[in-house]
């Protein structure tokens, strides 16, 4: 009686425990936590951004083009006289959406391929890796042209395209680590208790690859935002006039010498996003790794 009591108590404690200790551990890590708050802010902006902007991000004002920072326009105005700050805020949704979703999808597919390739080795590995090699060799622009031709333009397709480009990289990264991990003794132990291949790969090898996936993923988000913009210039993605950060940055290229704010603010937005994701990733990874945690 008393024994069962203690068990269930402990169970409850540990159940509630995981989440709350996670939260507790997380708050311990100041940098990661601040980054997390920033990220939450971004998500909020992505949701309500378009409704709280000081100016309509699309309305031009040809009488006030290319103005510097001022009381009225904190981040200045662009070549059409649109408020840069408003555009940044309104652009959070698209940029964050494309950046994160495409990288996530790419990471997912790449990770699976990498795990399978690394674990099974032999011809499976050869086939997957050589396909990756060829995909690497295909320049993005050519693939993009192909994708537009096959799928047509659209936001979904740009996400797909960016994801597609990042698949081989993730696959190779993960494969490299898999090759290493699969030789470890605890994997052998797992085999010896009869774990199915699936389980070994996804429950045991995969967690070991998470750290590098996190690093690569958080690094790639910025690249993805920029890549999405260059694809939208190829007619693949969002309308070039939609306020996404990458597009804003690319459009401002010609103004780098004359209207620095046009380059600076979108650049800053991407920088901060990537920085916060990286910090967040580091923090998460530390918490997930029982050895580093302490």
């Amino acid at each position: 009686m008393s024994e069962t009591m203690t068990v269930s108590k402990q169970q409850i404690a540990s159940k509630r425990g995981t989440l709350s200790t996670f939260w507790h551990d997380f708050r311990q890590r100041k940098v990661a936590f601040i980054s997390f708050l920033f990220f939450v802010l971004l998500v909020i902006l992505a949701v309500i951004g378009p409704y709280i902007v000081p100016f309509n991000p699309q309305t031009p004002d040809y009488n006030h083009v290319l103005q510097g920072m001022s009381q009225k326009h904190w981040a200045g105005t662009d070549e059409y006289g649109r408020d840069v700050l408003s555009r940044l805020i309104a652009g959070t949704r698209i940029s964050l959406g494309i950046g994160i979703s495409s990288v996530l999808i790419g990471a997912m597919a790449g990770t699976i391929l990498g795990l399978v390739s690394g674990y099974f080795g032999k011809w499976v590995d050869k086939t997957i890796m050589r396909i990756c090699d060829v995909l690497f060799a295909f320049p993005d622009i050519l693939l993009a042209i192909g994708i537009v031709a096959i799928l047509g333009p659209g936001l979904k397709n740009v996400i797909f395209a960016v994801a597609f480009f990042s698949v081989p990289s993730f696959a190779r990264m993960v494969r490299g680590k898999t090759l290493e991990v699969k030789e470890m003794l605890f994997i052998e132990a797992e085999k010896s208790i009869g774990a199915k291949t699936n389980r070994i790969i996804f429950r045991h090898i995969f967690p070991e690859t998470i750290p590098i996936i996190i690093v690569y993923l958080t690094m790639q988000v910025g690249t993805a935002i920029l890549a999405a913009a260059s694809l939208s210039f190829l007619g693949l993605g969002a309308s070039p006039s939609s306020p996404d950060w990458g597009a804003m940055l690319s459009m401002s290229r010609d103004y780098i010498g004359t209207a620095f704010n046009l380059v600076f603010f979108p650049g800053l937005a991407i920088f901060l996003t990537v920085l916060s994701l990286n910090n967040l990733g580091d923090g998460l990874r530390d918490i997930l790794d029982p050895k580093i945690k302490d």
Partner: protein
Amino acid sequence: MHNLLNVNNLQIAFRKRKKSIKVVNGVDFGISKGEIVGIVGESGCGKSVTSLSIMRLFHDTSGEVVGGTIQFKEKDLLELSEREMRRIRGKEIAMIFQEPMTSLNPVMKIGKQLIQGIMLHLGLNREEAKQQAVEMLKLVGIPRAESIMNEYPHQLSGGMRQRVMIAIAMSCEPELLIADEPTTALDVTIQAQILQLMKKIQRERGTAILLITHDLGVVAESCDRVVVMYAGRVVEEATVEELFESPLHPYTQGLIESVPKIGNRKEELYSIPGHVPNPEAMPNGCKFASRCPYVMDICREREPQLVSNNNGRKQRCWLHQSIKEEERKTIG
């Protein structure tokens, strides 16, 4: 006072979130030059942690020394700077770790792992160091020593790895060798050979050895003195002869009784009943009280101190000391 190493009231805790859990709480013992001291004790009682803290190798774990001193040749190791400590490690104090697989660098050839330290501490050049390394491997009974130099740890058997660890630790002629279960993975012939080797260096070079082991046979054969630990504390200390002749602490008695002996086969082996209390909920009194056949009321209330009699024999048990004695000691 011993002239080489003195550990005084050592306390070690692991932080876990906000909690700090003491796993070692009051370890006292000492080693003189050229002495072999054995530490035995229940698994998980803090032997390895104690030896790590002598080396100050808590660097990356959440563990830390929260009390006590570790005196090594007049210096308190806990006070030394990392740089000074580094000069001591490997050269003056060397250590053989318990887990030979994970303690060897998996991506470095055995030879290199040996040579590096030899070059660093003995000031030999690469060629000489290499010879010394091969010599060492042969001494610890590694077959085909030359070719093993070029192999990686995963290509060796468990026992071979352990011998490599031993070779690494002994290669630099330390003054104190801490050996954490050095012979568990070795067959008895090799074990005998290793023990002989250790004794030899002890005799010839005056190396002191702190031998952590579960094998009471090994203890009986090689140690001068024995320290018995239980639940993070030293519960008894005696010379080998005394200990095996007349163990004082009930835990020691239980241990000795548990040993299976060849030619004396029983259907069931004796084992000490019950469990170690968990470190977060340590009882107030004697930590062994719940398992002790001689338990008294006082055992549950107050923890006995480690008390030494005239000839240096120590115990921590109410059976062999009175409250007065304890008080006398604390006053004195």
